[in-house]
């Protein structure tokens, strides 16, 4: 007799993330639309300011966070929408994995999905806005990753809630954006300082907020997620 065992929380989460990414990899629709949206937005925002007054390189950090936020919302929207079509969520619920691992799996899938988009968007930003390629840009990439952990933690939970409501597309931004405020405030401060060549020590308090937010909300949302499922 084969030994069948339910996987542990983290390995189950990884399996679920792989499932989502496999679906994404085979269809590629969401990825390409989110990517094209992000790069299109980069280009559109270039014309939103008068370049003779504000230098593009000063504009870049702001544009980065706007584009990041909205492409993240696009990606998050699809996360639980995917399960809704054929009531895939029911299959997940009867499977022998804990509800926490469903959340973590979705969150890891979303994080990787969004990272892939940012992996193209940040170089595109550097290209279109004439940013110097070097250490500051690398630091900003790290900050983007930290910001994304917080965004995904909150966004995945709200995505699970929003799909069950009457106006999912509207509700997700409405629920998530207030929660992104501390992330965006601190991340934007760090990015602006770093790109202006200021020492990292100046950004330390913002970095602490960012990391604390990630830790607190990854834990809180993991614990809150089971409440959002049918009992």
């Amino acid at each position: 007799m084969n030994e069948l065992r339910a996987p542990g929380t983290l390995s189950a989460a990884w399996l679920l993330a792989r499932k989502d990414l496999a679906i994404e990899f085979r269809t590629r629709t969401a990825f390409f639309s989110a990517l094209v949206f992000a790069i299109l937005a980069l280009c559109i925002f270039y014309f939103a300011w008068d370049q003779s007054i504000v230098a593009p390189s000063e504009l870049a950090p702001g544009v980065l966070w706007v584009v990041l936020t909205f492409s993240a919302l696009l990606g998050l929207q699809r996360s639980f929408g995917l399960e809704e079509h054929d009531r895939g969520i029911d299959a997940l619920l009867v499977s022998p994995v804990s509800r926490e691992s469903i959340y973590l799996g979705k969150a890891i899938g979303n994080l990787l999905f969004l990272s892939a988009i940012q992996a193209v968007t940040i170089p595109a930003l550097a290209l279109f806005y004439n940013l110097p390629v070097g250490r500051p840009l690398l630091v900003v990439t790290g900050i983007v990753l930290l910001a994304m952990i917080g965004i995904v933690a909150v966004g995945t939970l709200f995505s699970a809630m929003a799909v069950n409501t009457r106006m999912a597309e509207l509700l997700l931004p409405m629920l998530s954006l207030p929660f992104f405020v501390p992330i965006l405030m601190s991340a934007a401060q760090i990015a602006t300082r770093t790109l202006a060549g200021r020492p990292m020590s100046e950004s330390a308090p913002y970095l602490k907020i960012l990391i604390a937010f990630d830790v607190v909300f990854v834990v809180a949302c993991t614990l809150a997620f089971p409440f959002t499922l049918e009992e």
Partner: protein
Amino acid sequence: MTAPFRGTTPQQRDPQALVAKPIFDWFFAFAVVAVIVLYVRALAFTPPDALQGLAQKIYYVHIAAWLGAYTAIGITALMSIVYLWLHDERADRLGEASAEVGLVFLTVGLTTGTIWAHRIWGAWWVWWDMRLTLTLFLWFIVAAYLVLRGGIEDPGMRGRYSAVLAVLAALLIPFIHLSVYLFSARLHPMPVALQPGRPKMSPEMLTTFLGSFVAFIILCIALIRARYRLGVLRDIASAAEIDGDAR
């Protein structure tokens, strides 16, 4: 699948009679009178501020409205925790009622605040004032809470989702507070009435000021009570509807 809720079982009462019966809310009437008395006192019998002149009179609405808003939102947060813990519908209904009242008081606070700021700070809006920014986002979160409730039909799911949102929002507030605090000028006047030592206020002003707190707390409770009763009626009506459909 509405679980019967304690206190008001739909079977015990005729929903038609209950909805049709006009209610005169004495407590609410008392609250309105208290607010009117307070404003007559504030406008006619309290001296104007030495520095700010008549603009300072808005304090009697503004700060009292904040007190009402924080009371209401505090109740919502508390009731959300109680709901997640005990799954009692009354907690959910009280949370909803307080959130709605809280939103009204927040709106009053923000509106009166901008009017005052225009006169005294010389600008309608100052982003880097901590309390202003914090409150604005609080307003957005309470609004999202109510919109979320409006978008869900199943009462159990509505209760759970909105409670989860409220609890997470309670965690979020310190973060917004901290991030605004880090790069903010504190333009708001520091507390005058409740500071240690003797308040730097004339006794008439202090009485009016504390009176406005009392009046607004009463108004806040009266509004929450009225809104709670409306929630009970709504639930009875929808339970009766489901009942009727089943037959």
